[in-house]
């Protein structure tokens, strides 16, 4: 049982990171109907930015997180303005490919500025563990879960109760009707990108600080961040609540599958199988229930 709880904690931490990154996918999908592959690139850039702020500039971890979030929001708005805004009224597949292009640009940019991989991001927790009986959980994992919970709760309060939250939801339903209420639709899209940038940086910083499995800080965390996509599909593409549930389920499933591999996996299954498990889940969801757990039924294509 000890092992199970330790894996569960690690899985929830990874799931919390997926949930954060996934929320970024969802808000942009809702505002524009585009699955923004560049989100994974924002995660990588965010992680390196936070690393830069702690290691090079010598800021404390928390201050670095704050700087990183501002950077992420600005970067999101800039990418939307410079790249995606130019693609208005272009066919969807062209826009999707442009976001893939932005994602592919990130790796050369990061390796030019910082080189990759780097040492993990320094945190105040180092490798300290919280011990409950025999169960030992990394404090950074708990921090990741708590931070994600706070940020997601703040987002949901904003989304449900504020004027701009209502405007965001109205814009997702009907852009022209939202415009006719005087809602600045371009502003709402920029806001969505800013939110996506903030959650991407937080997710990236957590991955770079080894809050989930030991991933270290390198361009490879972009591949991990992309697993927020299966979480998005499972949650239902356009549902922020679904992003959280999908992220947690995918994270826990992945870590449990990795932890119990030796005991239960059949011999023909190679180690490392757990890393592709999220993609298998995604395929199954797409085949069986394309609108996911909480998605609008009309959403049926990627």
């Amino acid at each position, binding site marked *: 049982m000890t092992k199970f709880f330790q894996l569960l904690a690690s899985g929830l931490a990874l799931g919390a990171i997926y949930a954060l990154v996934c929320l970024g996918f969802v808000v942009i999908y809702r505002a524009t109907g585009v699955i923004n592959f560049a989100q994974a690139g924002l995660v990588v850039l965010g992680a390196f930015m936070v690393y830069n702020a702690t290691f090079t500039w010598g800021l404390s971890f928390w201050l670095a997180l704050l700087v990183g979030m501002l950077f992420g929001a600005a970067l999101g708005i800039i990418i939307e303005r410079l790249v995606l805004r130019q693609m208005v009224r272009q066919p969807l597949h062209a826009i999707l490919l442009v976001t893939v292009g932005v994602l592919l640009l990130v790796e050369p940019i990061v390796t030019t500025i910082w080189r990759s991989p780097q040492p993990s991001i320094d945190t105040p927790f180092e490798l300290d563990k919280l011990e409950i009986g025999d169960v030992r959980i990394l404090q950074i994992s708990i921090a990741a879960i708590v931070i994600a919970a706070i940020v997601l709760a703040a987002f949901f309060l904003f989304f449900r109760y504020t004027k701009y939250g*209502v405007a965001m939801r109205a814009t997702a*339903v009907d852009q022209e009707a939202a*415009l006719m*209420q005087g*809602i600045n639709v371009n502003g709402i899209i920029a806001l969505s990108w800013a939110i996506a940038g903030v959650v991407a940086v937080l997710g990236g910083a957590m991955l770079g600080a080894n809050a989930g499995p030991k991933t270290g800080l390198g361009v490879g965390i972009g591949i991990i961040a992309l697993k927020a996509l299966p979480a998005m599909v499972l949650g239902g593409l356009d549902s922020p609540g679904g992003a959280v549930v999908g992220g947690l389920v995918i994270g826990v499933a992945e870590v449990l599958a990795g932890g119990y591999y030796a005991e239960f996996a059949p011999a023909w299954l190679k180690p490392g199988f757990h890393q592709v498990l999220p993609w298998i889940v995604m395929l199954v969801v797409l085949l069986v229930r394309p609108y996911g757990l909480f998605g609008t039924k009309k959403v049926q294509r990627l």
Partner: protein
Amino acid sequence: MLRVGEDSAAPLLAVRNLEVVYGGAITVLRGVSLDVSRGAVVALLGANGAGKTTLLRAVSGLLSVHAGRVERGTIELDGESILGEPTPDIVRRGLAQVMEGRRIFAELSVDENLRAGAFTRRDSDGIRDTHAHVLEMFPVLAKRLRDVAGYLSGGEQQMLAMGRALMANPRLLLLDEPSLGLAPLIQQQIRGIVAAIAAEGVGVLLVEQNAMLALSVASWGYVLEGGQVVREGAGQELLDDEEIRAAYLGTGEHGRRSFKDLKTYRRRRRWSG
């Protein structure tokens, strides 16, 4: 220099010689002029494709969403040009529109729909007053504030769309086919509400397929065909006009025509325009 037309006698909405082209090729409006005064209901009649919705889009700044462009002409609200301004700015200047098909935010609650309508306003006291006034005008909404708007009936959704538009506290209200697809009883309710809105001093431009309904509440009416105003006159005058009756009211010198006859008649008229 003597400047005329900028005093209070200037119409609330003044459209002059408006030409609109879609996609750089298809001319939909060919020199339309039209006035709406404060507190007046003005009906805009015409068959499908005559350019009624295009005119509303031009006024509310939504043409660009549909790849349309104003080629010539002017649009003034209270003596100031609103041509080419972004829709949110036009809304801020006191224009609201109920679009065809109601276009309520189906996933939002009734109350959230209403609050979205007040998006451009910052006077929270004023918003509260308008909110109370709208609920007074549409008691059916007051009972269902927390409900998801998508679950309302068609009539209730139309009331919500009108209430949402009124939340902006507009000087000019554009209504695109408010009675479409609704039962006669609900249509009569809508008619009464339109009259009440105008009685409060709001100018109303009413686009309707149901010409009988529109002309019975309107003080003035325009008939649009092939992108041009082919007739205009007082509501009652148009109601009594034999040709108008034949084309838009389904009755002519031979009494009620069949729907099929009416369609051919309209088509002939449209192409001859």
